């Protein structure tokens, strides 16, 4: 029975001919676009995550606070939206780390006599501060605290990058969505043609009392096959494009974003694309059927 249903589905697909072919190509386009944007945004996402970890904002203090003042200051700093991690660096700590950096020349520092360094707080921004507005707001709040002398470092460009990532993600979804819709409509058209071409088979099946599933399944299956073929083609297109483009993109990526490798979709992502294609096709097939 399964063999019969599948062979009928393929026969229908051949009969839908050029329309089925355009449906398959549209699904390919939709999923390839979706996949390409997905690859780009996930790589940007990696870059953003890596840079966000590395970004340090240093808040220099006017005076070294005493223990009580420090506790209250730290509490207020931590309360600023967008602040993830805080590390207090006292003047002595700062001097010690300076000495460590200077190594054998550390004696230079001793000759100064008095410690010239300020106490500071090192911050790591959180993902909350990922919009430029939020980052700016965070920096302004920190700068406005009376104890603060100066705020150094800015997460602005990382945040802009993450902004880009999200924008590209939206565009990808939009383009993929529109193409996906066109694909569904084309599958529906192809299936409607199949429905017409198949009317004699349907009539005979009903007449001899074939179970409803045998009557309807080929239609759904041919839609799913269109979707599956389109998705497999899209995966092939993406793979080839990646193989060709990655060697050229990687140097660029490492230069601009410090990202060593330009990664492809994970197996789960590819499986999701193939599943989405099959679902698109099934939906198209089902919509045509529901129309009667």
């Amino acid at each position, binding site marked *: *029975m399964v*063999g*019969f249903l599948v062979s009928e589905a393929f026969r229908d697909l051949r009969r839908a001919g050029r329309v089925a072919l355009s449906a398959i190509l549209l699904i390919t386009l939709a999923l390839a676009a979706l996949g390409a944007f997905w690859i780009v945004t996930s790589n940007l996402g990696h870059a953003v995550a890596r840079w966000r970890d590395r970004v340090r904002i240093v808040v220099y203090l006017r005076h070294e606070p005493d223990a009580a003042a420090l506790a209250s200051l730290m509490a207020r700093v931590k309360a600023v939206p967008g602040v993830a991690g805080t590390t207090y660096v006292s003047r002595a700590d700062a001097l010690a780390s300076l000495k460590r950096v200077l190594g054998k020349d550390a004696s230079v520092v001793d000759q100064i006599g008095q410690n010239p360094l300020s106490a500071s707080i090192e911050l790591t921004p959180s993902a909350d501060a990922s919009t430029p507005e939020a980052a700016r707001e965070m920096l302004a709040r920190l700068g406005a605290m009376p104890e603060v002398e100066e705020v150094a470092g800015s997460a602005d460009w990382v945040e802009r990058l993450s902004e880009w990532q999200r924008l590209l993600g939206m565009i990808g979804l939009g383009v993929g969505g529109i193409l996906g819709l066109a694909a569904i409509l084309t599958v529906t058209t192809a299936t409607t043609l199949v429905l017409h071409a198949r009317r*004699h*088979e349907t*009539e*005979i*099946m*009903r*007449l*001899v*009392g*074939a*179970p*409803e599933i*045998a009557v309807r399944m080929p239609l759904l299956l041919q839609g799913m096959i269109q979707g599956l073929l389109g998705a497999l083609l899209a995966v092939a297109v993406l793979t080839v494009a990646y193989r060709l483009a990655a060697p050229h993109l990687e140097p660029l990526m490492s230069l601009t974003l410090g990202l060593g490798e330009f990664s492809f979709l994970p197996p789960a992502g590819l499986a999701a694309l193939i599943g989405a294609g099959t679902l698109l096709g099934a939906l198209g097939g089902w919509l045509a059927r529901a129309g009667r």
Partner: protein
Amino acid sequence: MIELQGVWKTFSVGPVRVHALSDVSFRISRGEFVILTGTSGAGKTTLLRVLYGAERPTEGEVEVLGRDVPSLGRSEVAALRRSLGVVFQDAKLLPARTVYDNIAFVLRALGTPRSQITARVFDALRKVGLSSRAQAYPAQLSQGEAQRAALARAIVRKPPILLADEPTGNLDEGMATEIHDVIKDIWTSGTTVILATHQAGLAAVLKRRTLVLERGRLIKDQG
């Protein structure tokens, strides 16, 4: 085996109501050969459609093979039809498939095991005398051959009842006689047959029980 009791079928076309069947009652036993006749528009096709569940009577009782047909749901109608063979004036063969594939199509759609298909298709083709044309396409068949293929498809599952709606309407006299001989053979092997025809002469020739319809009424039941 088949029993109708006070069956009415009324079609409404706009404001006009047509009584395709008016208070029709009869009973057909297992193994009978019944000719259903009457002029065009008398209600023969409607009556057969009521029997295989394609038309629900407006009123009355219809029992086929122990089933109360008007009350059957979609899947139960399908189950009933698996016990009925139906042929029409038009052979309704699938043009892109050979005679063999047309008949195998039915078996495959009904889930017959692959290993049995070839034997059963050829068995059916032998009964209608069409074994040599198994690989021909419908367009290559004469009308008589096409009707034989349709008969083979109708009996391939050995249904207890064969319904034939004007099966020789398209055929010249010689071919019609051949088809009637094939239908008689099918009947002889134990199948109950109802043959609808508007050719009144045929009823006389076949010498079987004849039901005569006139404007939806059963006006004669003889033989």
